[in-house]
């Protein structure tokens, strides 16, 4: 299979004039797929260590909170009725996985590739450009979310917690959420000087979303102002949409939520490309 990456338009750039920020978008090419392939090969090589154990984590959450806490709580208010806690919580755990898998791939793992292994330097010595690398990393981050969530979806289906055929929509939702958080991860990676400094955005942004985005408890029980804040967080929309797909019903703010997520993803991806290029090319 041959993937051609076309050169940008031939035009003389005036002496000393740097590239305009928007010109990076035209520099992405199908060769980005080779970066995706390379990451997929590493993934296959290290699957036992990198993929299997983290999948067990949601199982523990479901057992501990779902069965453990669920035996105390029994049901939670959702959309004007009482929903068994486990049925509420399982889609929330999948949503959290969407966020974690893509975000951590394009932060810590990407940083190791970029800075410690110098993998990007190796790739840039070939017909690929920096923009191909960034795009490849972005799509790969989302791919990890989709892979993990697909397996988890099968898992919760075995417990009767997924309503088919609507549950199949979890896959594209995981893809969209994966693209969003992969882009947010790349933005962070473009900004932190050292790997230790990922702790700050992770604690300030990711962790609050993990807890307060309607993942482990319905946000409706929070005070009104907190509910408004929660609906600004992207994970709230993702968990709401995934919950709708798993329960087989239309979630609140569905179309607005999808539109919001798509817009945010496009903006984040654009910003990620510009900022990562700025970091990688001096």
């Amino acid at each position: 299979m041959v993937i051609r990456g076309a050169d940008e338009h031939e035009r003389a750039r005036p002496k000393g004039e740097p590239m305009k920020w928007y010109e990076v978008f035209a520099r992405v090419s199908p060769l980005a797929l080779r970066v995706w392939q390379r990451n997929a090969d590493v993934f296959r090589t290290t699957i036992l260590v990198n993929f299997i154990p983290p999948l067990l984590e949601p199982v523990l959450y479901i057992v501990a909170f779902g069965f453990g806490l669920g035996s105390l709580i029994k049901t939670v208010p959702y959309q004007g009725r009482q929903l068994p806690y486990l049925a509420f919580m399982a889609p929330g755990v999948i949503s959290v996985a969407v966020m974690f898998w893509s975000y951590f791939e394009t932060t810590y793992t990407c940083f190791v590739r970029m800075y410690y292994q110098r993998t990007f330097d190796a790739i840039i010595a070939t017909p690929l450009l920096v923009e191909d690398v960034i795009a490849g990393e972005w799509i790969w981050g989302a791919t990890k979310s989709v892979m993990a969530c697909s397996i988890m979806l099968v898992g919760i289906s075995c417990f009767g917690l997924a309503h088919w055929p609507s549950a199949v929509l979890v896959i594209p939702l995981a893809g969209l959420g994966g693209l969003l958080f992969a882009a947010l991860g790349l933005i962070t990676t473009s900004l932190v000087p050292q790997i230790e400094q990922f702790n700050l955005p992770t604690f300030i942004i990711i962790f609050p979303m993990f807890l307060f985005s309607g993942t482990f408890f319905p946000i409706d029980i929070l005070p009104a102002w907190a509910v408004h804040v929660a609906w600004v967080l992207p994970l709230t929309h993702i968990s709401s949409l995934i919950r709708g797909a798993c329960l087989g019903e239309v979630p609140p703010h569905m179309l607005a939520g999808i539109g919001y997520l798509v817009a945010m993803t496009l903006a984040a991806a654009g910003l990620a490309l510009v900022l990562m290029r700025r970091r990688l090319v001096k």
Partner: protein
Amino acid sequence: MAETAAPLPIEATGLIKRYGSFTAVDGIDFTVREGECVGFLGPNGAGKTTTVRMVTCFTPVTEGRARVFGLDVSIRPREIKRLLGICPQEDNLDPDFSVLKNLLVYARYFDLTGPGIRDRVEELLALMQLTDKIHANIRELSGGMKRRLMLARALLNNPRLLVLDEPTGGLDPQARHLMWQRVRSLRANEGVTVLMTTHYMEEASQLCDRVILMEGGKILLEGAPPALVEQEVGREVLEMWDYPAEVREFVRLASWRFEETEDRLYVYDRDRGRASEEIARRFPHQERLIRQATLEDVFLHHAGRTLKE
């Protein structure tokens, strides 16, 4: 006529690279001709690696122009890199892959897939004496082996121009000699054009048809190593250490060319050893060493400092 002549591997004019207020490369012109091995020789920070990074489309040119095989580095980076084999200063092999997988994945970036590439990989590993390591993980390789693997990788796409940035930095003498041997045999058997950088004058003397001495972002001078040495400092150098000030004064008054570093005095005497005799007569207890002049002496003479900081 100019239009029908094949484009030069590298043609750079007025090349400038600035990082903010710092100028790393300060307006240099140079060419590399087909089949040549050209080496940029200079201390760390001279601008050699930055120059190479501009030519290989790693970093944008601030001012000036560089053409590789007639293609402008600012306009046609992908096509240029298809023709290049780049071996950077620091190893960047994939620690998750075996030697074989590293090469296959790298070849894939050039759209080189299929059974033919496996043969090419084996051919290159044999050339670099790494055949028995084909399935080894990268972590099992020594520093010298990793360098040879980096060189093998740079040759996967049959490049027309091989770019080596400090090819033997940090290697032990045996590994360095093996590496030089490989590069020399590549040039002898396949006529590969080479652009390299180094701060080891011995390496430049061993490998390069032409050296370009660089310091502080500028080119000091260039030429074929033996001719350059002969022309700039002569054949022999008289080296002295632990000397009193009178010795230096004596040398100065005798109008012999000399250079002085912190602890050494070098006298360049074109008069076949007369300086040594006269110094021996005047200062019989002064230790003296007469040795061949090298590129190090040329550099010292022109830059006022040694290649090693």
